[in-house]
């Protein structure tokens, strides 16, 4: 059973008298435990598509199913609830909460979204922080660690709720090549360990090669689909 099924998904934005067709009738399927990349130039619709899959926005037309649920018409509360249970997010700018430590940032979704018991929470948070190699930095605040370290913390935060899907919008855009590969490899390692599906968008052609499947977007349509297989550049 596919994790994501998109059927003729379109998204149109209307700004005054201008209508922008961000996505035009996309149809695709993504299997569980896969490592997928969406690539394409700016304005091709990558972020819009990730927003739709992540239930941050709703398609104008078409059907989008994620983890066997129709997410095309979820309300604010339902979509927040769905995201909290099923989806993790990694952002280009890391978006760690500045008033929380590394430990607290990773703990946040369990504490504030899922109400996980304290003992289970602590074990899971420490295990994940250890997995991304940040255990020595766990008491530091985001402004005390580097960009690469922040993104590793963001990966741990995205995975701490054991989501079926992690969406990463340009996760390596603000990192140098070496750090970018390290983050991508951590993501792959976590995918292998947890069976979580990772979908990321990127401009970086070298990073793209790490994906198991690449969807190329152009002008809101899927222009191509390829499977480089991932060759482990790190």
């Amino acid at each position: 059973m596919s994790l994501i099924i998109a059927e003729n998904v379109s998204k149109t934005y209307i700004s005054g008298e201008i209508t922008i067709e961000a996505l035009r009738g996309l149809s695709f399927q993504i299997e569980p435990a896969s490592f997928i990349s969406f690539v394409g130039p700016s304005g091709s619709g990558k972020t819009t598509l990730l927003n739709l899959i992540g239930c941050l926005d709703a398609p104008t037309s078409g059907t989008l199913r994620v983890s066997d649920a129709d997410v095309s018409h979820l309300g604010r509360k339902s979509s927040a609830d769905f995201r909290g249970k099923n989806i993790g997010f990694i952002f280009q700018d890391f978006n760690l909460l500045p008033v929380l430590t590394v430990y607290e940032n990773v703990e946040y979704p369990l504490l504030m979204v899922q109400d996980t018991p304290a003992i289970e929470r602590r074990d899971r948070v420490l295990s994940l922080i250890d997995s991304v190699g940040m255990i020595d930095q766990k008491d530091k605040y985001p402004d005390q660690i580097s960009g690469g370290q922040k993104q590793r913390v963001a990966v741990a935060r995205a995975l701490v709720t054991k989501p079926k899907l992690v969406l990463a919008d340009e996760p390596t855009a603000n990192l140098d090549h070496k750090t970018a590969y390290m983050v991508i490899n951590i993501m792959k390692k976590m995918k292998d360990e947890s069976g979580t599906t990772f979908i990321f968008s990127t401009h970086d052609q070298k990073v793209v090669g790490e994906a198991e499947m690449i969807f190329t977007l152009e002008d809101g349509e899927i222009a191509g689909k390829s499977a480089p297989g991932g060759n482990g550049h790190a």
Partner: protein
Amino acid sequence: MLNLFRIAIRNLMRYKRRTFLTASLITIGVVFVLVFIAVSGSFRNMMVGEITDSFLGHMQIHKKGYVASIDTLPLTMNMGTQAVKKVEKAISEVPGIEASSMRIKFGGMFSNFVETTNVRLNGVYPEDEIRTVPLFPERIIKGDKIIRKGEILVPELLAKGMKVKVGDMIVVVATNRDGSVNGKQFTVGGILESATGPGGRDGYIHMDDALEVLRMDGVEISEIALRLNDFSNLDEISGKLNNILSTELNKEGKPAFEVHTWEKLSPFYNIARMIDIMTLSIKVMLIAIVLISIMNVMIMAVYERIREIGTIAAIGTLPKKILSMFIIEGFSLGVLGALIGNIIGVSAVYLLNISELTFNFGRWQLLLMQ
């Protein structure tokens, strides 16, 4: 909830300067209001105390219609012996009344043998009067603090105008209810300080002397002043007395008596009401200042933290929890300012209290805080 507070406090600490400025604004507002309420409340209570405890009493009972005609001090509207007994019985049935004082009020001529002028006089039983208005002796600024038979306590302004002093002989001439005129010599036993309100510039003589001047065979009473054990029970006791006395009807079938609390007798009540309204207005203004300043800070915080809000929303934080975070942050800011304001405000009130600062109000020199 504790976690929401923890995040709120950290966010407040994150913007130290803004938090400090907003909390300071709230603090200043709270201090100002506390001091204002304390000073105005103290002034109000002090004035009410001066009025009720020095001459008016907490409440008064009259024959129906007497208060409306009080300017002419009509002897025809006094309570006779039977009426007084009925009132005394009613007073005895209502618990919480500490003391009562019967008064005959009448107008007469005051002569120092050289000049003559008008005078308003109260005939009282001294012990009852002092138990009912315990600050009365403090109004006697010259002479012994007591009313003796054959002596008169002369109001300060009258004494000054008529150039009489303690020990001088004067004559009081009055017309009784039958129209006959009678006079009696008195020794000036004391000079009485003026007070604000009806009866505040009256002279005082002993009840027996009043009966003699007015040639009354039995006791006829103009008013009965009452003092309560607990002033806060004023309305309750007034209501009870009214209920009992309203069953006593006059010849026209209307209630024979009327009960008035000090509020209905003294013009100061309007000033007290004004103080209450001003205090309420200041409180409303403070709340508005606090809420607007917190709202302003919170709006800025929301605009500044759009990205953070987006992040926690994407993670799955429910909208109401995100709203709670900001409300708790604003609440914490308000509580912080109010707490500091209360500490400083209470300290300021305490300092004002122990410093015993005074101010002049009319002829009185009053403590700023009592």
